[in-house]
């Protein structure tokens, strides 16, 4: 099924008899997802409105991410939340996954840049929420609720984003000698100073990486101040700006896990894990590969771990019963006939795959 209009999509959902899976590029699916009959959303494509002087872009959900980024770049702008590039990825998939990159520490996540949206709920009803202005408290913020909801409440058809100017200058500092656990305090020191950091992570073979962006003179000033502040952690060298596109690692051998924590708890978690594939957000995000099917034994911490590739969905620790009930009730309200296939129901329909 490949609807060309929102109305057609609504009709498909209204008349569906079994589970459906809305698919953008299908590049960000988690284990157990994507098992229903697929609705290909690439037909709902194109820019509805772009006003660079108002920092506003309204775009249909099936528009390829790379097209959106090229359009913005031509006007000297960008999506500040820095979604990672994947072949075929659509902007709707980015929003449904709340895909957010290194600049989240400075500019917020995808959900923070989402100003409004249109979606079709599980009964085929078209709903609008938010708008296209950056301050809007009119009614409930269903934009946040739908952001990252992975198609569980409705199918996104149109999204309004706040855009941001491309920074004229950029610099990356590297502390190549640091292990992941040693990198965390260095990243914390950087983020706790007045340096307006736009990236703070760690990569294997590269060490701790810190990024500064802005006007040319400002970047030079902050770079010097930061290098001085970080000297106590090890040798500070110029780093490669291209490394930031590697901060969201792909599944290689084994299961890919995404672990969210308070940065101060990262060293304790790292001690219980093999060498990570990446650290991001100052140590608040750990990417690690584990042997297939392994469940990590982690010390108690504030946060959660999600298996994003591998044999079936799994999140640690188990969700609080009341939170789980709220999640389930919201899904029942937005999709009472379970048309928008949930991972759990799909797991029963057919064996999960990565």
């Amino acid at each position, binding site marked *: 099924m490949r609807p060309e209009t929102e109305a057609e999509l609504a009709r498909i959902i209204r008349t569906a008899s079994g589970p459906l899976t809305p698919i953008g590029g299908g590049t960000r699916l988690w284990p157990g997802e994507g098992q229903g009959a697929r609705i290909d959303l690439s037909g709902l494509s194109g820019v509805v409105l772009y006003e660079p002087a108002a920092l506003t872009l309204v775009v249909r959900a099936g528009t390829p991410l790379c097209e959106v980024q090229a359009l913005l770049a031509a006007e000297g702008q960008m999506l500040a939340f820095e979604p990672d590039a994947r072949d075929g990825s659509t902007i709707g998939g980015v929003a449904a996954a709340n895909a957010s990159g290194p600049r989240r520490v400075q500019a917020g996540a995808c959900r923070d840049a989402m100003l409004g949206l249109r979606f079709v709920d599980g009964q085929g009803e078209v709903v609008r929420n938010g708008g296209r202005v950056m301050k809007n408290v009119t009614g409930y913020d269903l934009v946040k609720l739908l952001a990252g909801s992975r198609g569980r409440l409705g199918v996104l058809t149109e999204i309004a984003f706040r855009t941001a100017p491309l920074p004229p200058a950029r610099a990356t500092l590297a502390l190549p000698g640091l292990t992941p656990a040693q990198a965390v305090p260095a990243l914390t020191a950087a983020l706790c100073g007045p340096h307006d950091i736009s990236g703070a992570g760690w990569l294997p073979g590269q060490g701790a990486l810190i990024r500064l962006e802005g006007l040319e003179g400002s970047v030079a000033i902050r770079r010097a101040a930061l290098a001085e502040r970080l000297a106590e952690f090890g040798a500070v060298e110029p780093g490669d700006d291209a490394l930031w596109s590697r901060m969201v690692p792909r599944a290689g051998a084994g299961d890919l896990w995404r672990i969210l924590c308070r940065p*101060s708890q990262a060293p304790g978690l790292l001690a219980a894990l093999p060498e990570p594939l990446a650290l991001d957000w100052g140590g608040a995000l750990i990417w690690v590969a584990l042997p297939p099917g392994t469940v990590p034994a982690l010390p108690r911490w504030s946060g959660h771990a999600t298996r994003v590739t591998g044999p079936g969905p799994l999140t640690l620790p188990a969700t609080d019963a009341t939170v789980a009930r709220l999640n389930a009730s919201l899904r029942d309200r937005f999709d009472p006939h379970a048309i928008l296939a949930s991972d759990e129901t799909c797991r029963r329909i057919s064996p999960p795959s990565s």
Partner: protein
Amino acid sequence: MQMPAPDQAVIGRRDAIVARLIAALSAAGDAAARVIDDPAETRAYECDALSAYRCPPLAVVLPSTTAGVAAVLRLCHEERVPVVPRGAGTSLAGGSMPTADAVVIGLARMNAVLETDLADRFIRVQAGRTNLSVSSAVETAGFFYAPDPSSQLACAIGGNIAMNSGGAHCLKYGVTTNNLLGVTLVMMDGSVVELGGPMGEAPGLDLLGVVCGSEGQLGIVTEATLRILPRPAGARPVLIGFDSSETAGACVAAIIRAGIIPVAIEFMDRPCIRATEAFAGAGYPDCEALLIVEVEGTAPEIDEQLRLIRAIAETFAPVAFRESRSEEESRRIWLGRKSAFGAMGQINDYMCLDGTIPVSALPQVLAGIARLSGEFGLDVANVFHAGDGNMHPLILYDANTPGDLERCEAMGAEILKLCVTVGGCLTGEHGVGVEKRELMGVQFDAADMEAQMRVKDVFDPLWLLNAAKVFPLAVSAPRREGLRHAA
């Protein structure tokens, strides 16, 4: 202002309910809590900052712990008593205005700092703590909490979360929802739930995201984890005067288009400049409109940004360009803006609107407001956050002239409709409350509102919590009346 008729059965059971409230708080171990039922004292809670509308509540409870709030909500749920949450009572939209059958739960006694973690850059506070005192608690360590509504000296974090409050500096730092990492939420049935997590993220749906800005209709936030940021090395404003509002608006768009995002761009028009000059004597230039643009960083970084801003502004033939050279000059530049509302209050009664528009529509909307001002015969002063399009037209009226308030409200509705027509919204940071409830249909159709009300159905199935707010009364009536009485 129409409100639902109070439940006389509840009012009739008042003394029994009060007795049970006292017992429930005691059983929950909340010894510092207070229950107020003396009509002389409950009158202090009859309104918030939308003071044109008042109604004393059935009783007021001031719990001091989450367990106390939970015990009170559980009891009210059992007794089917409506509840109205209240932070500091500074809502401009009537968000904490009670009905005669409602128990007000005030957060005034819950103002402690629970945890400060500088390395992880967050602070956890009880939700009754004032906005400014959150920043004060981390100031000496070199941090601050970014959202800064102009009521920040008085307003409570719990109210900020309920209304998703903004402020002057959200062009760079975002509003409450962008700086909120987690909450402890007590739902109407008394169950307590933790939402959010590191980076504000939790597995599953973004419940924190939908609770923020839900105007106290989904639960009562008793504790909040807030992101704190390192204080910038410095900040400096520049004041730019123009010979027309349209030119000032065009200059805002040009600055943003050039890729400069100042922390704040504030706008004032001539009526507002004149009033604040008379009131505060900030020494503003005599001009049709002015902008205050503030940038941050070290001194050379500020110079770099202001050089660019000056170059842009000069293409709009400004009648004044004053760059602050000292703390004192900065203070004077901000003085007029910060006293604008007080100044207007000195000369007139006024109604402050809060619509947001795409910045590109600024000239059109300013012209539209001027036209409406003529039609309704009421003066308007404009002062607002220009960078993000959040307008605050102040409609001046005389409360002692019969019919003036009604005329003012009718004109306000027309201005808000205009905001929606050009692609904006009814409210940018004050919330809908009771004030703009009946206008929701201008922005949303039935399906849009139905989707929002479904969320309330999940958190508060009986529609007991602040239920007569946000949605037009006729739209929420089947839920408010049907569900509660069927239960």
